[in-house]
């Protein structure tokens, strides 16, 4: 087998793996509906809608930082 043929098989294999990965991801998204933190994917839209600096994060990175909340008043 020459290098071009190897490349072609390699390319085909890679494409197949990526396709399976992508479809697996679709299946995961629509069957589980929630991510590992138990948060519904759809609620992440709020990251844009409630984006003032004193709005509560959808899931905050640490409790310590959330206490800044309310420091600012509007």
């Amino acid at each position, binding site marked *: 087998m020459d290098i071009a043929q190897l490349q*072609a098989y390699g390319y085909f294999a890679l494409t197949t793996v*990526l396709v399976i990965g*992508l479809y697996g*991801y*679709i299946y995961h*998204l*629509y069957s589980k*509906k929630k*991510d590992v*933190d138990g*948060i519904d*994917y*759809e*609620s*992440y*839209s*709020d*990251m*844009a*809608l409630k*984006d*003032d*600096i*004193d*709005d509560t*994060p*959808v*899931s*905050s*990175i640490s409790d310590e*930082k*959330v206490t*800044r909340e309310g*420091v*600012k*008043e*509007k």
Partner: protein
Amino acid sequence: MENRPLEYDYTIAKMFMLTTIVLGIVGMLIGVVLAFQLAFPGINLFLGEGLAEYTNFSRLRPLHTDAVIFGFTLSGVFATWYYVGQRVLKVSMAESKLLMILGKVHFWLYLAVVAAVVVSLFAGVTTSKEYAEFEWPIDIGVVLVWVIWGVGMFGLIGIRREKSLYISIWYYIATFLGIAMLYLFNNMEIPTMLATSDVGESGIGAWYHSVSMYSGTNDALVQWWYGHNAVAFGFTVPIVAMIYYFLPKESGQAIYSYKLSLLSFWGLMFVYLWAGGHHLLYSTVPDWMQTMGSIFSVILILPSWGSAINMLLTMKGEWQQVAASPLIKFMILASTFYMFSTLEGPIQAIKSVNAIAHFTDWIIGHVHDGVLGWVGFMIMAALYHMAPRVFKREIYSKSLMVAQFWIQTLGVVLYFTSMWIAGITQGMMWRAHDEFGNLAYSFIDTVTVLHPYYAIRGVGGLLYLVGFLMFAYNIYKTMSARPVEAGELQSASPMGA
């Protein structure tokens, strides 16, 4: 300082808003000049014979493309990043001195690179690779600007309060990584001063000149892998980032399906990188690569429409907003044009269609329904949404916006319809032959036939430019319009009559 409430800091965003507008005007003005030069060649000499070197079509064309791509569009991407980034990560740039400094260095270095590009291209100093015309010293500047942006971006992500990254952030990150990889690989070049010729001469050519490390077919392959993905990561990915933030925010509607947005993201990343081969159909690159380019181009419809439909459905039940708000109009037309050009592109990538379309004005038409209808409209909409929030004033005039919307829409329609007709006419005339295989037309025959369409395109482009000037004026006047309260800025932007 202690007691001051924390606020988002839009200093850098404002700076980039300014360059978006200024470079937009410059780039589109040159575009209009080019369009009329093609229709009326005398305009090549509009400053007289003596200056013809600087005013001819070929000198100005790369100035147009680079000014609108790396000037207007990229400034728009940076401006929106420095706005959206802070907001969806819920962290202010003011919280980190380092990030503020990086932001400022990013801006000023970017401006220096822009100046170097303008001067060198006017002087005719170019590597002659499309969209990669800059000589190596400028390339080094470009890389620096990019790295600084990246450090600032990941720095901001590092100090965020929101744990998850909003979908727009994914797209901004992809823009950063994608362009970094593409730009580096396509601009691999060797300064000619380091070269030695066969007969032993060394230090060849000016110090700033370089030659590409690739040649022949390889060069073409790398160039169009770059060229097409510059469309992907410059004209698509960051603009999708914008619409995923600005449309929901302005309309007050949650994204129709957040899951679909994630899915289209990975689909787009997966498919886009392989489609560049469609620029090289019927060329010397291997046949399987051309076929792959065609196939992936057709598949590309799926993730593209995934995003676009997601945006249109976000307006479900809220269509009265499209009628009521010119800002929403801009965004809905933008996503419609996105659907339109991502359908047109795959059609052009089909081999038999490409046999007619390649090298014709149909391609120019396709480019511009994308960039004028999608990229231009979305960036202007983003700046309109940002203006009241960064200046804390209402948008100066709603009626001016409405007028601008219709003038520019008409401009885009005139542009692409004339180029369709011109392109297909050209394609058909070039290949027409008699029963013995003799070509039916000479080149000049096509030029004569195309003249009216070139004139129409010029008028369409002029209308778009006029609309852009109205946009610039509106934003300028917004800076001194009626001040607004924070409460008015929740969703729909406040606008004066």
